[in-house]
């Protein structure tokens, strides 16, 4: 009964609740499984997987900013084979849908990962991380050009056995155009937003704190940008949105729903509190009570749907 009110369905995925850890902030689940039962979660977006193992960037890889953090992990991951052989099978013990985040530097990279990973039984959807630099286009990221983003989406859709969510970068002039382009190319849903590009400089060394110089800004600081973009995009597309960016509480989740999200991902908040996700899920129930809402789906886009 009360469980049902948190249920959402998006792109054919049925989730027991709309809360999932965000990709890159939860590894492949093992660490947080020490704290709570991962079946509490609506889904899990796992760390980006690339064809080959990646060593990632030199350290320091994180820096703190006011109300946020920068990261430049650099897509470190054990590579597709290892993920298929070890990480995803380990997650089978939980009856929790897995969203496989995939990355690459060429279209072929992405396609190779998508094709194989989408066949895994507990992978319920793919999340296309298009913030990566596209080597064949001179390093501009896949996510900043609507045509390149759409082309990539098309190729992935050809091989994917599961719904494809395209994860949009906020570092663009016009996120709506990109969203519409990937929708037209067949995307089943959108994830937004990925991190904002930022930097911090150390006053003592006079150099950027991150070895990679720039990094991705996440955490509460970026929430208003995420809400604005989801608000704009959700009114222009007909595919569901997984919202993310600074979510820390059930109130934040409701704000994302009102803006137009159909589910949400929690990233940085896991680092602040390993129990962030289950706590938010519990509090969400209380909020729906207080608001007299029977199903959280009533709130999707309620900010603009009169």
């Amino acid at each position, binding site marked *: 009964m009360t469980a049902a009110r948190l249920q959402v369905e998006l792109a054919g995925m049925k989730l027991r609740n709309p809360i999932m850890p965000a990709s890159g902030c939860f590894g492949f689940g093992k660490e947080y499984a020490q704290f709570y039962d991962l079946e509490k979660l609506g889904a899990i977006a796992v760390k980006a997987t690339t064809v080959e193992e990646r060593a990632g960037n030199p350290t320091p890889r994180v820096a703190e900013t006011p109300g946020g*953090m920068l990261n430049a992990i650099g897509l470190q991951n054990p590579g597709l084979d290892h993920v298929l052989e070890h990480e995803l099978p380990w997650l089978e013990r939980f009856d929790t849908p897995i969203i496989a985040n995939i990355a690459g530097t060429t279209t072929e990279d992405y396609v190779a990962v998508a094709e194989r990973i989408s066949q895994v039984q507990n992978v319920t959807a793919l999340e296309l991380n298009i913030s990566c630099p596209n080597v064949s286009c001179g390093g501009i990221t896949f996510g900043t050009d609507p045509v390149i983003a759409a082309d990539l989406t098309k190729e992935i859709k050809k091989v994917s056995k599961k719904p494809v969510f395209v994860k949009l970068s906020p570092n663009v002039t016009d996120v709506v155009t990109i969203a519409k382009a990937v929708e037209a190319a067949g995307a089943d849903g959108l994830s937004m937003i990925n991190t904002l590009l930022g930097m911090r400089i150390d006053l003592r060394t006079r150099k950027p704190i991150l070895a990679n110089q720039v990094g991705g800004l996440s955490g509460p600081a970026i929430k208003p940008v995420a809400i604005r973009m989801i608000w704009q995009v959700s009114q222009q597309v007909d595919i569901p949105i997984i919202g993310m960016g600074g979510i820390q509480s059930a109130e934040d989740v409701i704000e994302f729903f009102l803006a137009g999200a159909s589910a949400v991902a929690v990233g940085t908040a896991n680092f602040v509190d390993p129990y962030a996700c289950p706590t938010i899920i519990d509090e969400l129930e209380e909020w729906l009570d207080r608001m007299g809402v029977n199903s959280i789906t009533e709130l999707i886009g309620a900010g603009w749907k009169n």
Partner: protein
Amino acid sequence: MDKGLLQVVSNELVADRVYRIRLQGEWVNRKIVPGQFLHVKCGPGIDPLLRRPISISDVDQTEHTLDMIYRVEGSGTKILSEAIAGNQIDLLGPLGIGFPIDQRQKGERALLIGGGVGVPPLLYLARELAQKGVRVTSVIGFGEANQVFLEEELGSYGEVYVTTIDGSKGHNGLVTDLLNEQYGLDNNAWDVLYACGPLPMLRALQDRYQATDKEAYLSLEQRMGCGVGACLACVYPAAEGSDHSYYKTCSDGPVFELRKVVLG
């Protein structure tokens, strides 16, 4: 490992910008290995947002207290230094793999080397070793006299050598300057080495003992996100020939066998 809310018993300045905070609560009633650390939410709210890793410097299971000794560096430690008795501190731990001491035998000789705010975990380590009958010698280095702490406490478990860079207290120079026959601290003088301190100190130790067969452990620092092994913020490359390509400081460390990691 779990989240806990511990009560501040005291929080006192013990050296220049260095505080010792004592926390109390049932939570302490768990196995804590020397060298493990806590991930501390230094203040409520979003600034600072992330937790701060701080070593456990001592544990008293009967009083249910634990100590951390930390230097005020930036916003997080500044706020922590303002906590007063009765305040609650939100922490996560005990985290990581501490100093391996299970294999230690009575009568073995352990050399503990600490630099600056790397000294704190050595206190709990010294105590646990002493309890096993291990003979402990500590060499601890600081910038200048007013930065020295734990000299006396470490003294109750064995001999303590203090160095300061400006020579204002103890021996003039770096801890590594003492690791020779003149001080009776050469390779033959100890069976196992445990070190915690700034990267240059750890690098010097690694260079010195890399090619030897001495048993030695280094406790490393790295900027962290999650503190539990999920975000990959805190890695060090694994040394050639390891079965890993990298190690996570928070969950594979912070203590590593000296030859295991590449100290960039």
